[in-house]
């Protein structure tokens, strides 16, 4: 088991390396460098100082030296300085990342809470009315683009009905740490996470449904029935366990979806997270922030796939042995 995880991590290293090269190259390809930002804030800087600054920042070094320095800094948690906000990227991120993590976690949990029961009902009672409704819903949610759905949700529940706040992550007038503060926080979360969750159920529902349908005709289920195992236990002990495998395998890729989704959701609900920060930074050409964000997102996805494999190996003895 431990060996398996170690091996899996070793496999991740070249991917991480490639990712870092790609991000580094992107950063180099971006018009302007670390100085352009400063220059914009301080137009009076003369050529002499400029050259000195350039030398000081190591911008004249060969690319690989810059790369190694960048990686070193990265490992020490130094993501550079945002020239727009004039503060370390790490500080900037720490303000926002909590919000995004909260939102993503809500979406993921909510989506599983919705999808798993629906998938089970749908797979267990195939062709029933409930199944047809669930399949219909999953088709609809598969076809609907997130940004349009979120926009409609905001329009209907935020503006027309006015049930939920239309922007931000918390009511700024509420004092931090009070009960009201948390209520307000949850209140701000409901609409974006519901929008995200309702659309991200489709994968789980369909995988679960197909997997249950496939599993329930397998011979070992017949064996279990022939043992006299009650129907509910057949599902809980034999079918579901086997059917959850692909969902666990899918978890890693859910994270890619969540990162993409957060860009839309945070933009539409003006939710101050890293998705919104990313868009702002792109518009303001705040490159150090962009590079940091791409790197972190890539890392998150890699960790997600790692997590998937670890879960899989924990559940499936066939992988564990290997």
């Amino acid at each position, binding site marked *: 088991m431990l060996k398996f995880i170690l091996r899996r991590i070793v496999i991740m290293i070249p*991917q991480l390396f*490639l*990712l870092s090269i*790609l991000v580094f190259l*992107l950063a180099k*390809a*971006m*018009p302007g460098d670390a100085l352009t930002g400063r220059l914009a804030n301080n137009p009076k800087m003369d050529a002499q100082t400029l050259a000195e600054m350039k030398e000081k920042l190591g911008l004249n070094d060969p690319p690989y030296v810059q790369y190694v320095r960048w990686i070193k800094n990265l490992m020490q948690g130094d993501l550079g300085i945002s020239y727009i906000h004039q503060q370390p990227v790490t500080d900037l991120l720490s303000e926002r990342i909590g919000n995004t993590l909260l939102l993503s976690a809500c979406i993921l949990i909510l989506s599983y809470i919705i999808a798993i029961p629906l998938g089970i009902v749908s797979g267990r009672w195939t062709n029933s009315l409930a199944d047809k409704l669930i399949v219909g819903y999953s*088709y*609809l949610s*598969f*076809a*609907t*683009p*997130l*940004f*349009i759905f979120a*926009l*409609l949700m*905001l*329009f209907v529940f935020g*503006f027309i009905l006015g049930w939920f706040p*239309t*922007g931000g992550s918390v009511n700024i007038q509420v004092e931090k740490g009070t009960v009201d503060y948390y209520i307000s926080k949850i209140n701000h979360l409901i609409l974006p996470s519901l929008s995200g969750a309702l659309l991200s159920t489709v994968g789980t529902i369909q995988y679960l449904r197909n997997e249950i349908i496939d599993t329930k005709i397998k011979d070992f289920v017949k064996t279990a029935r022939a043992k006299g195992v009650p129907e509910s236990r057949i599902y809980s002990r034999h079918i579901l366990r086997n059917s959850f495998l692909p969902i666990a395998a899918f978890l*890693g*890729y859910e994270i*890619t979806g969540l*990162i*993409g989704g957060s*860009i*839309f959701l945070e*933009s*539409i609900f003006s939710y101050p997270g890293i998705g919104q920060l*990313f*868009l702002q930074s*792109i*518009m303001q*050409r705040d490159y150090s922030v*962009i590079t940091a*964000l*791409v790197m972190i*997102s*890539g890392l*998150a*996805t*890699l960790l997600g*796939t790692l997590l998937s494999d670890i879960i899989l190996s924990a559940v499936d003895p066939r992988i564990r042995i290997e």
Partner: protein
Amino acid sequence: MKAELGGPQQVEVQTEKSPSSFSIMWRELVRDKLALGSLILLSIILLIVYGSSLILDKEEIVKVDLLSIYAPPSSEHWLGTDYGGRDIFGQLIIGARNSFTIGLAITLITGFIGLTVGLIAGYFGGVVDNIIMRIIDFILVLPFLMLVIVFVAIVPKYNVFTFILIMSAFLWTGKARLIRAKTLAERELDYVSASKTLGTPDWKIIVREILPNLSSIIIVNLTLNLAGNIGIESGLSYLGFGLPESTPSLGTLVSYAMNPDVLQNKWWVWLPASLLILVMMLCINFIGQALKRAADARQRLG
């Protein structure tokens, strides 16, 4: 032995002729009412969009008319105007045309790349397959949306073609993976071994033997991808990182809703485009799902 010689052969279970995947899938599609309705609706929309985009005066549409800013729908402007007084309906038609065409282009390009790469990796296996799969695995863990946005932001001389290229560079992987998996399974079947022992060259086995057996999967996948690509394109355009400003997209119209005032009070600006995207994607998806069911049913029959 003798009794069977020349005698009419008993035919098992099915007697239907010709398992051409296209005809079977077409028949299934027409039988499915929802899918048939979707097909008809989509055809009508596309006919109107492509038909009227030929007639519409593009110059007229993009011309700023400060006298009629945010005009609500009227007989002159069927769907009102935007902040520049430009006709929404006209933009809707042009946008829909652009979105659909670009979605289609991306689908075809990624389809071609995915198919080629998938077939090669799956058929030959070994080192080739290993390298290709490592590349695909890598691309799949990249934060796709962020990278596209970064690329769009930094590419010099950005235009429609660069957009299509950027999108295609990321989106072929899923298809290649699918086709590879199916080819791998198909390769293990004895009809492929038989072809090899009969002296059929590899390229011919790939194109003539394996490809026809993947056709239904490919059709389904391309259809569903078309819908997905239209969605991604309009989504990116919504964020402002899709089509360049000179090329209106449905997403651009929706993006006006970023302004809360427009979102709340001027529904005619963004709602029609949103609904049009929704309807198009639903139609294509319903068609795709019906095709998928048909393909699955085919597979069950063998």
